[in-house]
């Protein structure tokens, strides 16, 4: 992209002042995103931005959509509210469901603000649980001292009528409250979220947010390197740790700018003669690391974006993707049980068990270590089944702790299909096993393999 300046950071949605060379693009105008961390190319159609923008990192920072929970009441979050002087102010949070912690911070400040603007005004604060954040446990003490009436309600004890009459019923008290209600709205995923998920090819998020609910993505990663998510695009509690999340994200971008290197050092190439551009690899890749190469009219793996899970290889219908490594080296003929283990869970658990007990849990098995169980293809399993009479155990990760987000499910699908096919051919399908565990189940794994070794091997 000769000539057009390369930005260090592109904000999709709202911008925060930083010292990075950055540009702001509105989500509505964004049309496409190509490239990878360090070299994204964003296409957008709005007058004051060039059509193609080159950026090294991307932050999607969109506000929540606010859905009022009480028809006709003001929102707690908007600052211009109007109090009639003879009526009390009633702050309501956690209605009907618990509000995120950030809301109690806003509510406490609002209650204090009302108390000193309207000193002789009665202020009620209705809540299910006072959630603390930074210093707002002090705000809570201050608010109580300032005479704000705190009423804790449990599920079912608070109802609001059409004409905004609040009835608060507990076994010992029954209260009818009327006045200006400031209610915490329900926070919903940002507008445009679905569209942006398509544009950035992100794995479907949690509750329609952009971020999948997975520990490797916390706090603001998106599964695609260099693309970060904040506030209404990230998740339901993104405002609670907003400062830390922003700090973390800008730190990551600063580090990226000092240079990004490949995560996986195996060489994966797509044969453009065999590739039929069916987009299966593009859709199945959890890290958005594949895009179409217009000249070659073939898909292309972006080295820096690729995180090495091999899902593309295992699902390409024309076997067009090669890797300069074979995880399933010649299966030795000995009748050893084949143990296909993921390097993020079973391998670490086995090492931990060894360091705790000195025993080798994997000894007696033929160990095949893969970066993710999503590397496993049907042919691998069937060839192993054909190579000797031993069983095959595949050990993947528990769902939300899979480094490659969908690898654990993709492997389950492959294994289930193999078992169905074996059953249809009256072949023994019980030789194939799939278990999911976490790296902290060392003793469990050690014991499990020991029992299994007795049952299977002898």
């Amino acid at each position, binding site marked *: 992209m000769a000539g057009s300046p390369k930005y260090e950071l592109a904000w999709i949605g709202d911008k925060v002042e930083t010292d990075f060379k950055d540009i702001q693009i509105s989500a509505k105008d964004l049309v496409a995103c190509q490239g990878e961390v360090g070299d994204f190319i964003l296409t957008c159609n709005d007058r004051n931005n060039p059509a193609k923008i080159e950026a090294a990192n991307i932050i999607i920072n969109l506000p929540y959509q606010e859905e009022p929970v009480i028809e006709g009441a003001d929102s707690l979050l908007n600052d211009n509210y109007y109090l009639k002087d003879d009526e009390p102010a009633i702050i309501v949070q956690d209605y009907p469901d618990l509000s995120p912690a950030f809301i109690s911070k806003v509510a406490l400040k609002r209650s204090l603000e009302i108390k000193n603007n309207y000193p002789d005004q009665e202020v009620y604060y209705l809540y299910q649980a006072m959630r603390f954040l930074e210093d707002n446990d002090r705000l809570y003490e201050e608010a109580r001292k300032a005479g704000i009436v705190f009423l804790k309600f449990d599920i079912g004890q608070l109802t609001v009528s059409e004409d905004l009459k609040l009835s608060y019923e507990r076994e010992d008290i029954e209260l009818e409250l009327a006045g200006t209600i400031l209610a915490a709205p329900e926070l919903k995923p940002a507008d445009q979220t679905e569209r942006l998920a398509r544009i950035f090819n992100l794995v479907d998020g949690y509750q329609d947010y952009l971020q999948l609910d997975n520990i490797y993505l916390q706090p603001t990663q998106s599964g695609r390197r260099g693309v970060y998510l904040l506030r209404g695009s990230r998740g339901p509690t993104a405002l609670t740790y907003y400062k830390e999340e922003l700090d973390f994200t800008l730190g990551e971008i600063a580090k990226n700018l000092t240079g990004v290197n490949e995560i996986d050092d195996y060489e994966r190439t797509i044969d453009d003669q065999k590739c039929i551009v069916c987009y299966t690899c593009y859709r199945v890749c959890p890290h958005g690391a594949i895009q179409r190469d217009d000249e070659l009219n073939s898909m292309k793996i972006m080295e820096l974006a690729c995180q090495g899970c091999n899902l593309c290889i295992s699902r390409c219908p024309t076997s067009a993707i090669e890797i300069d490594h074979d995880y399933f080296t010649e299966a030795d003929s000995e009748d050893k049980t084949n143990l296909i283990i993921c390097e993020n869970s079973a391998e670490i658990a086995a090492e931990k068990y060894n360091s705790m007990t000195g025993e080798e849990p994997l000894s007696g098995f033929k160990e095949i270590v893969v970066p993710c169980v999503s590397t496993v293809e049907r042919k691998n399993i*069937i060839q192993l089944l054909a190579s000797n009479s031993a069983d095959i155990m595949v050990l993947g990760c528990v769902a939300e702790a899979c480094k490659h987000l969908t690898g654990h499910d993709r492997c389950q699908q492959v294994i289930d299909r193999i078992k169905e096919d074996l059953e249809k051919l009256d*072949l023994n399908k019980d030789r194939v096993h799939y278990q999911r565990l976490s790296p902290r189940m060392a003793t469990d794994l050690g014991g499990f393999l020991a029992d299994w070794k007795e049952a299977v091997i002898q």
Partner: protein
Amino acid sequence: MIVGKLKDVNEIKDSLPDDLDSLLIAGCGSCVSVSLAGGEREAESLKNLLDFYYQTNNQEVSIETETIKRQCDDEFLDELELAIARNKIVLSLACGVGVQHLAIKYPDKIILPGLDTTFYGRTSDIGEWEEMCHGCGKCILDQFAGVCPVARCSKSLLNGPCGGSQDGICEVDDDIDCGWQKIYDRAEELGQLEKLLDFDFPKDWSTHKDGGVRSHKDPEFFQE
């Protein structure tokens, strides 16, 4: 594109003769690869599976696989010439077109279908396809706001929905959307509601297969 589904592996095995000693599995690299049913990976996995089956039942069968770009053009079939010569039986993973094209080109060979070809469809999700067109030979999409009643209504009704659709779901199956609900929604969006029922029925089905097996000559190659 043409969408197909690999036959159940036991069906494939049962279609092979008991005294089988050699087999060619011919994959097709176009439509059925895109619909993940009959490409090189499926051919290879099927070979592995059948190898394992015959090995377990100690039956000597040599299975080879070959995948070509398309099985509906002669020139690509030439690439299979040698492999076909080596085998009496060919299991084609192409759609029904490829299977029959091989049968035409190699009259002395048994050509077996490995796929159940299903419909012309779009990819609606990864690994999921939906029927969109029946190839009725006379497109009427302009009159139904871009949603085909022939392909997407289970009864191909042309004058509005049957009495059985409810909440946009077809009476036949909860997983099937009522085609007419889709026609109605889109026509309403485009403001074409009034002329929705102006179709001069009944439809002339002679352009469909009902009019006899069809072929088509490009006028730029054939003068009347």
